[in-house]
């Protein structure tokens, strides 16, 4: 038995009723005990483990609507549509939704939408240890929303999901989000992730995105500082013909963050971009796994991840690209560049290509290195002191991912935020030295 038994406190917390359709919830509930949690002997969980969660004794969130919690970070966004979740509890619909956008609490959604929210592609499988967490989410989900964007609508206002966790101590939540873009629609979804308390919390969230023909979803995740956060976050995206999914995953904090993406590039002409930046420090473990499936011919993907690890932090990236048998004329590129700043830091990077078609252009590369001494020397030779020169190089390394983010205000804010963080890091190291 590779997996770890479901802790008793977790079994005891299984609710009678969830927002999943009754049949789906029943099936999930009957499986969670036998699925347990992924354990360290699962290949997919070699580098990250859920011990902190097993030992955590988290309580299901009972938070109420109307919690008086604001994020401490104000993102510079133009008139965003805010969907706030405090400890996983949805705080209600904003008053001024753009026309062409419909947002419904999952509990109030029609049966078909609830079925869709709980039927991602690929369907959760008992053989995949990662899916145990999705099944658990299904069995536990009490909250969630359905976001619908009408066909041909171009939504300028970003839709922001604020995950504010930690208003109550030792809370866990299992929210579920469904995003559906109609044909030729365009929208931007931003996850603003912040931990408000300093006691450990656990969020096990699932986002299911369905992108119709010729539609484009931009999905940005910003995991901000907060050492108390344990999170297992799963995103599914299903792309129809000529659809685009642009993903930017920035993780700057959390005790243990495991983020997973399943991108199903299922219609010809579809394209996905995946850019990632992770910067663990202290004892943080920041882990992203991506799986891109090219299931149709003439599809493309482009993936670029960067990790910068300091102190005893750990950065993990695993990227799998699967090209199915009849998916010809595919272009798929992946790179993972990693910067290691301290002797105690660790990086695990693993590309995985599985190609069954023969007319394919596919490449991947991974690098792990330290700061370039010659570049440091060059900057110092221009009068820049060593510590500042180091930070310039680190910020420059991060900047190449930040520069890809399409929202200019957010890009500038993030550039500054990362610089500020590096300045703090000098002070932290000096304190510890």
């Amino acid at each position: 038995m590779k997996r770890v038994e479901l802790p008793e406190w977790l079994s005891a917390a299984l609710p009678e009723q969830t927002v999943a359709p009754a049949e789906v919830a029943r099936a999930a509930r009957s499986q969670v005990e036998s699925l347990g949690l992924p354990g360290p002997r699962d290949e997919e969980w070699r580098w990250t483990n859920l011990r902190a969660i097993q030992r955590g004794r988290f309580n299901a969130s009972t938070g109420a609507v109307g919690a008086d919690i604001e994020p401490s970070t104000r993102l510079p966004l133009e008139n965003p549509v805010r969907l706030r979740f405090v400890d996983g509890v949805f705080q209600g619909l904003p008053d001024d939704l753009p026309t062409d956008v419909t947002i419904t609490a999952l509990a109030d959604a029609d049966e078909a939408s609830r079925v869709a929210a709980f039927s991602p592609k690929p369907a959760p499988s008992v053989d995949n240890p990662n899916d145990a967490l999705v099944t658990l989410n299904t069995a536990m989900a009490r909250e969630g929303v359905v976001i619908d964007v009408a066909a041909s609508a171009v939504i300028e206002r970003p839709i922001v999901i604020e995950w504010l966790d930690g208003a109550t101590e030792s809370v866990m939540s299992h929210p579920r989000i469904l995003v559906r873009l109609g044909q030729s629609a365009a929208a931007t979804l931003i996850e603003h992730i912040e931990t408000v308390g300093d006691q450990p919390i656990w969020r096990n969230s699932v986002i299911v995105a369905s992108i119709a023909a010729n539609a484009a979803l931009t999905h940005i995740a910003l995991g901000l500082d907060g050492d108390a956060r344990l999170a297992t976050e799963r995103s599914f995206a299903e792309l129809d013909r000529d659809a685009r999914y642009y993903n930017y995953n920035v993780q700057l904090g959390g005790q243990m963050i495991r983020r997973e993406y399943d991108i199903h590039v299922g219609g010809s002409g579809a394209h996905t971009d995946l850019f990632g930046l992770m910067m663990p420090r202290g004892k943080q473990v920041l882990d992203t796994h991506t799986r891109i499936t090219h299931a149709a011919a003439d599809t493309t993907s482009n993936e670029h991840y960067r990790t910068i690890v300091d102190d005893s932090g750990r950065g993990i990236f695993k990227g799998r690209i699967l090209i199915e048998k009849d998916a010809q004329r595919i272009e798929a590129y992946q790179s993972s560049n990693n910067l290691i700043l301290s002797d105690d830091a660790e990086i695990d990077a693993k590309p995985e290509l599985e190609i069954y078609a023969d007319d394919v252009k596919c490449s991947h590369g991974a690098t792990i290195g330290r700061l370039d001494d010659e570049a440091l020397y060059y900057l110092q030779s221009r009068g820049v002191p060593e510590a500042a020169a180091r930070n310039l190089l680190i910020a420059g390394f991060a900047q190449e991912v930040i520069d890809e983010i399409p929202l200019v205000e957010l890009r500038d804010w993030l550039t500054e935020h990362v610089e500020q963080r590096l300045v703090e890091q000098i002070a932290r190291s000096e304190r510890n030295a």
Partner: protein
Amino acid sequence: MALLEIKNLHAEIDGKKILNGIDLTVNAGEIHAIMGPNGSGKSTLCNVLGGHEGYEVTQGSITFDGHDLLEMETEERAVAGLLLGFQHPVEIPGVKNIYLLKEALNAKREAQGLDEIDTFSFMKQVRELVASMDMDDSFLHRGVNAGFSGGEKKRNEILQMLLLEPKIALLDETDSGLDIDALKIVSASINRMRDEERGIILVTHYQRLLNYVEPDFVHILYEGRIVKSGDKTLAQRLEAEGYQDILEEAS
């Protein structure tokens, strides 16, 4: 007044002796050309002056503007006014040129007890210099040397020098690999920097640069020592006769 005084300088890298007793004095207002065949120690001399950690000075002294240069960190040398133009400037993608220029200028101003430069004056000054180097403004927002051609990299080195106005400019093979148009721009800029207060050292492999920038002194470096010094005619002889005759004559 001697800006730079090198006495009996010996240096090695990874235990291998490269410099074997260099003596050189550069006064304010002078241009010195240091020439020598491959492997004679030209780049080692530049790196020792720049403060590269890989080189160890085993003997001798260097005095720069009254300070013991060997006691100074690389960045201290730079803000004190010694600037090295690299033979192979490193590419630093992600760090924008404009950013480096501002950091470098402010580091120097801070060392002089001046406030940070205001953005408006800075941009004005930088734009003028960029135009004078026949470069495009867009270069300022590209990564430092990232994806630059060889000629663009060398122009960038000169641009930094024009902005930072060093007391000693040490140019390591700045002319190598330049086509004639770029060479003319680079040498015009070096001539512009030539003044009473400043010393310039041109380390070069080719005599051609000296047709455009006329040196006061020419030194031949060979096996880690200056084996012959003279005026600009020495460079012309070198061009006409090659190293062999001159080296034989010197020994």
